[in-house]
């Protein structure tokens, strides 16, 4: 299956791209995807950063399974306002 990953803010800068399509095996979770991405983009590993996860614009847990066509975003600490 394939998922669309969007990067924002510090992760966009560190990945050097705003978006990537990632191929995953069936049943892969958000955490599996993150591990795979860190291999492709080693700079994504920001020391000490605490990320939240969103699939199709909703917050999810890291062990949630992904489905083909999902849009996944790793959310660094927010700082709006």
């Amino acid at each position, binding site marked *: 299956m394939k998922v669309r990953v969007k990067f*924002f803010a*510090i992760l*966009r800068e560190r990945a050097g791209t705003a978006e990537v399509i990632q191929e995953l095996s069936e049943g892969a979770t958000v955490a599996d995807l993150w591990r795979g991405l860190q291999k492709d983009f080693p700079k994504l590993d920001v020391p*000490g950063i605490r990320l939240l996860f969103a699939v199709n*614009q909703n917050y999810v847990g890291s062990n949630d399974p992904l489905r083909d066509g999902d849009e996944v975003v790793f959310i660094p*600490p927010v700082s*709006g*306002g």
Partner: protein
Amino acid sequence: MYRVQTEPIDLSELVRYVTDAEAGAIATFIGTTRNNNEGRKVIALDYEAYPEMAEKELARIGAEAAQKWQIRRMAIVHRLGPVQIGEASVIIAVSSAHREAAFAASRFAIEEIKKTVPIWKKEVYEGGEVWIGTQTGQPLQR
């Protein structure tokens, strides 16, 4: 009205939107960009969002506020892109029959925005820049 936009935010547009014949109060909150943070001089700011989700989260905050307090109408608009020092980065307007609900709901909304809405602020200093919240890996205590 729950929106992110790169254009300057028009307070009067939000006030018009929440104006309601059954309301006895309108509370507005304006978050503005400050020229200093933790002892450093900020020379420029830049906001970035995951726009679809940010607008969805703003709407969720509005729905939650409407469950907690007797409010009539609510509007939240957050600015994106470069914002000059002293300009509004976020404006909240809320109307209610009685003032307590409008005050409480606007306070609730700004606190929630800082916790859950996927918007990020980059501060530019002389000789450096930083995405706020990521310096230590932990969200800043505000």
